[in-house]
């Protein structure tokens, strides 16, 4: 278990100094030096987030504003972006956020992302995007290239992104940024703090209520410190971020979804709007619709190992005869369920809830069942 070597080519977020000051164990992730855990430890950081409020530095992710070249409103930018994603972007209300998928020509997923229609009328015709760290360069180049002449991509390289997640997140943030408490889930609003603009989204990657806040890099540390001064808040690393999202049944790009996976296979059909199933006009639409009507060859499911041993990414899934019927794409220990949890892909014959399967771990075959996700109930804000 050697220490990770510091690598001068790794990038740093605006919160790097704070993360190290707080005792973060820094590791390379998507080209950045990120904290995998703090002295609290992954287990307690995970549990704390579900009990109170966890603060995450996710500034490595990509933020951008899409602008129309020339005049136009929301309908125009939505029409352009809809040529790249299967979601209903046109139908977004002002301030509304949509989870959607950037697709390739085979209907595979280039990335999963959040797209937001601005609230303010004078910002109509723009969209705010947040994409994954590992794919952000490819994503923005793809969008800029595909929509050249129609849409311009303004990357927000100087902004940090801080997530505050957990049942106490709303009361913590309300004390610092009054007005956030009444925001609806999956909406974004701009607030002023220390004379600068914060973009506050009521969204997250943990299954809990919470916020993702885009902050100018220059004041990000000061903002984080104010939040950390609240007794409810602890800094949380990427290790717990992963166990939290896994328990919530959420996909991790590059593991549960990738360029070779369609939304149908990934059980993300809900991300394809009804209208767009009929109208089509997104990359790979023929293949995706074929899978929708005729079934896909594999499908993502939740898996619960019967015992205490975790099964991790890459583990083969076998049926009662020992034949390989799938593969685990994410797996580990779920602190809130106090046991192992996993997700993976199986042939449709084995996808029904309750199906018993084996997970090959080292020299053993661990019994497991297909279970619905999330593994812990989602607790999004419902007024």
């Amino acid at each position: 278990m050697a220490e990770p070597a510091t690598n001068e080519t790794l990038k740093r977020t605006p919160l790097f100094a704070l993360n190290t000051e707080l005792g973060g164990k820094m590791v390379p992730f998507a080209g950045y030096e990120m904290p995998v855990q703090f002295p609290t430890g992954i287990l307690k950081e995970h549990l704390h987030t579900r009990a109170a409020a966890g603060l995450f530095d996710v500034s490595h992710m990509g933020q951008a504003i899409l602008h129309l070249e020339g005049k136009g409103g929301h309908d125009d930018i939505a029409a352009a972006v809809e040529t790249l994603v299967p979601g209903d972007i046109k139908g977004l209300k002002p301030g509304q956020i949509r989870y959607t998928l950037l697709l390739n020509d085979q209907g595979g997923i280039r990335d999963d992302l959040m797209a937001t229609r601005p609230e303010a009328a004078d910002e109509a015709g723009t969209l705010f995007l947040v994409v994954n760290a590992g794919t952000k360069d490819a994503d923005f180049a793809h969008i800029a290239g595909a929509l050249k002449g129609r849409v311009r991509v303004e990357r927000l390289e100087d902004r940090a992104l801080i997530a505050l997640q957990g049942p106490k997140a709303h009361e913590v943030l309300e004390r610092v940024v009054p007005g956030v408490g009444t925001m609806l889930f999956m909406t974004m609003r701009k607030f002023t703090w220390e004379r600068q603009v914060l973009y506050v989204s009521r969204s997250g990657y943990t299954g809990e209520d919470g916020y993702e806040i885009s902050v100018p890099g220059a004041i990000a540390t000061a903002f984080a410190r104010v939040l950390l001064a609240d007794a409810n808040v602890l800094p949380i690393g990427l290790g717990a971020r992963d166990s939290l999202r896994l328990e919530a049944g959420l996909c991790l790009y590059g593991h549960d979804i990738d360029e070779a996976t369609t939304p149908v296979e990934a059980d993300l059909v809900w991300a394809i709007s009804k209208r767009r199933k009929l109208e089509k006009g997104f990359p790979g639409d023929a293949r995706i619709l074929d899978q929708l009507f005729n079934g896909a060859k594999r499908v993502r499911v939740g898996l619960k190992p019967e015992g205490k041993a975790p099964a991790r990414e890459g583990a083969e899934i076998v049926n009662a005869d020992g034949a390989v019927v799938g593969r685990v794409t994410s797996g580990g220990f779920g602190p809130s369920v106090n046991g192992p949890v996993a997700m993976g892909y199986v042939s449709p014959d084995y996808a029904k809830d309750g199906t018993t399967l084996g997970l090959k771990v080292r020299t053993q075959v661990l019994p497991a069942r297909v279970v619905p996700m999330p593994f812990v109930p989602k607790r999004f804000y419902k007024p």
Partner: protein
Amino acid sequence: MEHHAMTTRYTKDHEWVRIDGNTATVGITPYAAEQLGDVVFVELPSVGKKVTKGGEAAVVESVKAASEVYAPLSGEVVEVNSALEGEPAKVNADPAGNGWFLKLKVTNEAELGELMSETQYNEYLKGL
């Protein structure tokens, strides 16, 4: 905590072994436990299993990953710490004591000489 510096030896992979006659108790060091983070599962060998020095003896899992625990000496497993099944966190709480993994009947005493003393292990840690 009893001081076993005279009879405790260490490996480069951060296992400790405490010799008492020809029985050796094996665990992982506080350094290893700290590197691992919270232990959530331990896979112990069966009693009677024969292990060779440097071979896999057990597996210890943290939230994020599985790590192998190697046998510091060749021998036969005579006892395992089944308390770890229900309480894997014992490994973090007391890695040098209650968090022990297994006991071996040592079959080749000469192998002891290949292990580090506590002083040597502490020096080794400084260099990491």
